[in-house]
Every structure is written in structure tokens, then in C-alpha cells.
């Protein structure tokens, strides 16, 4: 449901990157999404299509890579990968997790055409 808000913010980031490099068109976008964001990739792709319409990123493809969750136990400092419904620390048995990864949405790469017309 929050894919539209994420897509709008993503388009802002993509267009800013494209403008910094004097791009005339954005061809593709690569995004890392933490598994805990509960983003549905297909819904985000559709939202991205809508949010990018009429911009330099109109028609660009969106590739998403899911990032697993990572936790630090606040009780014993153990680092582990929690399941989305199980944060019990394998070392001390507490479920007092500080999330180190899994909530991020990071724009990694933007492929764009520059004025010579070639996508490199």
C-alpha cells in the first residue's frame, strides 16, 4: 500500500541523479529493498511507471533486489539473521533486536542516455 509513496520518492532520487549527469533519458534503475519493508515488487513497478510518467525516467525499467534482515541483540550483542516472525537471539534467547538491515530502500544504479545518444 505504501508503494506509491516510495515510488514518488524514488523518482525524485532518480531524476536528481540523471540531472547531475546531464542525462536525456533514464533507461533502467536498480533498487535494493529490505525484506522488512514488505514492498510488493510488482506493485512498486506499477507505481514507478505512474510516478515517472512524463519525466526523464518515463519508460525506464525497474530492477529490485531484496536485502535480507540483519539484527543485533541488545542483550548480548550477538549478530544474526532474524526471520520476519522470529527474532529470538540464537545465543541468549531474548527477542530484543536492533535491526541493522532489512528496512532500507537504496537506489544503487541508474542507467541513462547522455546527449550523444548512447547508453553505456
Amino acid at each position: 500500500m505504501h508503494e506509491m509513496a516510495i515510488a514518488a520518492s524514488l523518482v525524485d532520487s532518480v531524476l536528481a541523479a540523471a540531472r547531475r549527469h546531464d542525462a536525456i533519458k533514464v533507461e533502467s534503475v536498480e533498487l535494493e529493498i529490505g525484506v522488512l519493508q514488505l514492498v510488493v515488487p510488482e506493485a512498486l513497478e506499477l507505481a514507478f511507471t505512474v510516478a515517472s510518467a512524463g519525466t526523464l525516467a518515463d519508460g525506464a525499467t525497474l530492477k529490485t533486489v531484496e536485502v535480507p534482515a540483519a539484527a543485533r541483540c541488545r542483550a548480548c550483542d550477538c549478530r544474526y539473521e532474524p526471520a520476519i516472525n522470529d527474532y529470538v537471539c540464537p545465543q541468549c534467547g531474548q527477542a530484543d533486536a536492533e535491526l541493522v538491515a532489512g528496512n532500507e530502500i537504496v537506489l544503487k544504479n541508474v542507467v541513462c542516455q547522455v546527449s550523444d545518444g548512447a547508453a553505456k
Partner: protein
Amino acid sequence: MKVKVVESVLKANDALARENRRRVDAAGVLVLNLMSAPGSGKTTLLERTIPALGAEYPAGVLVGDLQTTRDAERLGVLGVPAIQINTGKGCHLDAAQVAAGLDSLALAGMAFLFIENVGNMVCPAGFDLGEHLRVALLSVPEGDDKVAKYPTLFQPADVVLLTKVDLLGVLDYDGGRVRDDLAKLNTRAPLMEMSAKTGQGFDQWLAWLHQRWRDRHAGAAGGGRTAEQAGCA
């Protein structure tokens, strides 16, 4: 050409959330983000909590809903500043909306600011608003499997309130299931059984709020952490 970017798509929200936190910290206000399904009793909780905090702990409220100013009107009669944020089609509050809400509030002298998020158990959890503490509510009539179904709401919560426990006698409800599911997600947050109808649980809730306030002003603001949590069993 391929442009390496590596920047958070949520950075605009996160930057605004940091600025919100700076503003409320400067005013000495403790901010709580209340999240739950629609109808679990967020507004009713505040209707009982705010008078109990009284003049000693002046409160303010920002309340998010898609439509209507009904919740702000309900809370406004308590004599505290209550600002309604209508999100239109938006399923959650974001830091920009809260920033605009802060502009309309006199923060000086305020002790607690309650942000009543849009009723939704998924989307609000993904957006930092600049709060210090997260309050997750679930009500008895919603069923005893809510914690397991919506882990991203309950895992980062600083306190979990089970509301409408006066209905336990008329519904088949397995409170043990809630406790077991929560034990897998979050052993840090206390689970409080509340009833706004009978007043059950409010002493414990108010004591928790008062303690967080003291922690905050002893320089220990943030995740509600306490010293006894150090060390591994």
C-alpha cells in the same frame, strides 16, 4: 552511462524525521507514535490518558486519518491542542506531514506529544516521524493472531497495549497466543492489558509514561532501554 548512486530513497523522509526530533528535543517534548489497526482504541486511549496526565504533564496530539476531523474534535474537547492531519489517499503519516503539524503546535511547555497514526498495521511502521517511542495497540475483538500476522508493527514497539480486555469474557480469545507470538518478536516491550471502559491497566500505562518521561529528562531518551538489559543469559 551507468551512474552509481547508493542513496536511501527514504532519505527525504528520514532527514525530515531527524529535524522533527531535533525540534521536539529542543522543546523537551517526549513524542510517542501510536500505531494499530483502525478501531483498536487509539483515540479512546488518549481520551483517558490525557486527563490522567493532567496539568503536570501537558499533552498535545497530532492525529492522522484519511478523512474527517472527528478524532481531533474528540480530543480537542479535552482542552489540549489536537491537530488533525488528513492524508487523503495516504495510508500512513510521513515526516513532512508531522513537520507541518509541529508548525501548528505550541511545543513550549508540552510534556508529551502523541501522534495517532492512520489506522493501518503495515505502512506506518516503515516511516520514521521523529518519534522517541513506538506504541503498538491491538484490541481483543481483532483476534488473537494479530501479533503473528503483522510482525513489522510489533517487533520495533516499545510497548504493546492489548485493549478492550473487558470483552475477554464474551469472546473466545487466547491471550497466551498473543504472549507467545510476542515472545518471538519482542521481549523488550511490556504487554499491558487495558480497558478504557473499566480503567484496567491505566495505572501501569501511566506509570510507564511517567518513567519514560523521567528517563528522557535524565538524558536517556530513545528506545526505552534500561540498564538491567545488559548481559547475556
